[in-house]
């Protein structure tokens, strides 16, 4: 198979590169672009640790061929910290004790980001629905839900 040209917008910057047509987005991000914040837990779209945002929607990057993101917007965990300032969601995850081993944290935070951008005042049920694509084996999810609620309140207070 011939290599193909890929151009997409990654964390606010256009990236142009040549890739093998069968490479998955997660491997492009981690091994070629060096963005290791996106994790690999199962490579079959079940655990959700590889979640990134595609045009603002959470997707499993381990089962998404990289060529599918041509001219699309991709956001990884590295893309939501602006000038070393944490996103309020990240701060809430830290403050509420929503992080233990941390392996699912980037995926959880990005899923929460996608939710709060669309729905600034989610109910607990909506939070659960939106984060249900990511598994966590450590926390029991309670503090993650609390962190999303706290982040929602902080975002509101920041206007």
């Amino acid at each position, binding site marked *: 198979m011939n290599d193909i040209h890929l151009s997409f917008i990654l964390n606010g910057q256009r990236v142009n590169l040549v890739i093998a047509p069968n490479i998955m987005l997660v491997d492009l991000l981690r091994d070629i672009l060096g963005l290791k914040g996106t994790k690999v837990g199962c490579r079959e779209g079940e655990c959700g640790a590889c979640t990134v945002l595609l045009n603002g929607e959470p997707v499993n990057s381990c089962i998404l061929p990289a060529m599918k993101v041509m001219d699309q917007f991709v956001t990884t965990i590295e893309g939501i910290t602006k000038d070393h300032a944490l996103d309020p969601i990240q701060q809430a*995850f830290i403050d509420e004790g929503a992080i233990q081993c*941390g392996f699912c*944290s980037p995926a959880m935070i990005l899923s929460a980001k996608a939710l709060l951008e669309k729905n600034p005042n989610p109910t607990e049920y909506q939070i659960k629905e939106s984060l249900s694509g990511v*598994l966590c084996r450590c926390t*029991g999810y309670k503090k993650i839900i609390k962190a999303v609620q706290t982040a929602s309140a902080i975002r509101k207070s920041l206007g």
Partner: protein
Amino acid sequence: MDEEKKKKAKVINREKLDTQQLFQLKTEVGLSVVGQSIPRTDAREKATGKLAYGADYPQEGYLHGKILRSPFPHALIKKINVEKAQKLPGVVAVLTAKDVPGRNSFGVVIPDQPVICGDKVRFVGDAVALVAGETEEISYRALSMIEVEYEPLQPVFDPKEALKPEAPLIHDQGNLLVHHKLRKGDVQKGLAESDVILERTYKVPFVEHAYLEPDVVMAIPKPDGTIRIQGPMQAPFTVRRNVAAVLGIPINKVQVRSIYMGGGFGGKEDAPLDIGCRAAVLAVKTGRPIRLALEREEVTLQTAKRHPHIMEIKIGAKKDGTIVAFEGTIYNEKGAYASLGPLVNIHSVIMMPGPYEIPNCKVDGYLCYTNHPFGGAMRGFGAPQVCFAHESIIDELALELGMNPLEIRRKNAFKLGSMTATSQVLDQSVGLQETIEACAKAFDWNRRYQEAGYLDRERTRRRGVGIGMGFYRTSFGASFDGCGANVYVQEDGSVLLYSGITEIGQGSFTVLTQICAEELGICVEDIRLVEPDTDLVPEAGPTVGSRSTTLMGNAIILAARQVKDSIMEMASEMISVPVERLAAKNRYIWDCEHPENRIHFRDVVSKCWMKGKRLIGQGWWAPPPPSLDPETSQGNPYFVYAYSTQMAEVVVDVETGEVEVTDFVAAFDVGKAINPCAVEGQIEGGITMGLGYALMEEIILKDGYIQNLSFQDFLIPTIKDVPQITPIILEVENKLGPYGAKGMGEMPNIPTAPAIVNAIAHACGGRVRSLPADPEKVWRAIREAGGPPEK
């Protein structure tokens, strides 16, 4: 300094304190760091995705190791031909059993698992050959080119079958690895005196830890003949010991670094031995760094699981609910290799009668090899298995006696001075009764117990409530159980803390830093904890057995006090106050009688450094040595226990057997919560894992093959499965713990499953005696009990 001040500053006397006295010292000025829910020290790195896990380490220059596994559960290896694989371009080494330089076996307790099998394979997943190639693809291709001729043998898949004389031998010494016995009182007499005797059998399956981060290890050979092994691992010292033996080199030539882990739950105690030893052999044979990473399916196939138990119980009680006899038999399925089985087995045996004072107990635990994957350590170490059994049968007993399940527990549960099944007298820190009362009150047990019944007019959904209770050790109860710590205060007042306890997500780095800061009277930010590296940190044993906070915490306190001696003496001189009158908190040292007379920690340290005073502290703490009679299991196996009572509310669909857990209250006696937020995190996480054990988790085996290798088929709880959880933290001081703390990481995981299964029985009358209580089993249990209740 004027003469009068000098007189005042005279040290009156100095007394060497033993450990017990040391921990009885109460600090008069209160705690400033311990007991605070400070955020984890690693939280920012984790929230930003910057923290490097094993898979994130650079891979340039590494060869990729892969394992050829047995396709048979039990077979002889007749011939291996590696020629074709060796010739594949990019393949650097293909190794078989003869290539292992030292001992061709590893194991945490007994080294019975081959690094590379030579003559025989014992489970589907056993290693037959190892490959190192320039890329993962090349290594995988090479695996498919290795030709192995097997002669399949009759396999054994059932622990009871394995004990029969005609059963095929899995290991030469027999299929019974160990038989542990517990004998207290006279169980026959106890049963004879009982008004009611119940006899039941309970079963639990293999389950997977399901940590999200797949196992990975790196082995880096050095020109001087040493080797470095690094990866996510709970037991770097155990890895070191095994790698040294497998390579046939002294322990001091092996350096092991435990890096941050994406979860472990006991599974990363022995999985890193397996891949660590294999990567080490490949590294030594090729002279190149090796990276050996497992895919998710390989993790499930190859690594340890929670042991399945078949548990037969006979329990005898008086009419008033007093339990007088407990007789239990455990058929503990070992699977193919020993791993931690012998230690799990004795723990299952001594924990089986539960947290109840029973005068006559008899338990037999048979640990039996089979040709299944092997059991190892998993959060609770035998206790979740037997807790399911003792909490189920006590509920059945209550029903039989017409008693409220809360009452029968209250009546028999441990209190201060109680005698356990091993005849250990619980002489301190026994908060079980307190957890019962706190939990019952917060849950409103008595009201909700009366209110079970249908929720809808269609009579499909029934609500019920259940209790689970348990206790759990701190430490692993062996004579070699101890922790060392070094505390080095630098000339500017900053501190390096060296500890071999690993960070698996539980928050140990944060909690241990809090203890160090409290003891030195400084802030958490002043301390950097050096990540566990066997070349740098003193022996600490493994991060298991809920031992880290207590054992390492004590070692850190002892280390910190050595440097604090120098610092306080110097401070005493500098502000002319006797040492006895000084207090240290938040970077200041002051005169308790005149708090305005104070000095900064940094300035005192600087002076100490100038004057050559000791700023290096080295602490070692080992629990009181355990005693356990090998024939009767009578004695003191552990020095302290944590306690928990949990209450669950479930809604059961009587037509489909589906169960929803709708509310959960759990109370814990943890001695002292060093970081309450972290303790809550352990509680919520442990309960959620227990919910999975109760309702959905099971490694399904058919003819020795795992049917659910991936997360698609091995289900664990998602965010949608988790109910409201109310954690209640109680603190009944452990006199031998740092600030009164005791272990609690495993405790929350133990009584959850029986609480849920008891609630199911309460809701619909159907008693599930075999985990998981999936819809099919619940549906059947309802029918066996005579169908859905009428009202």
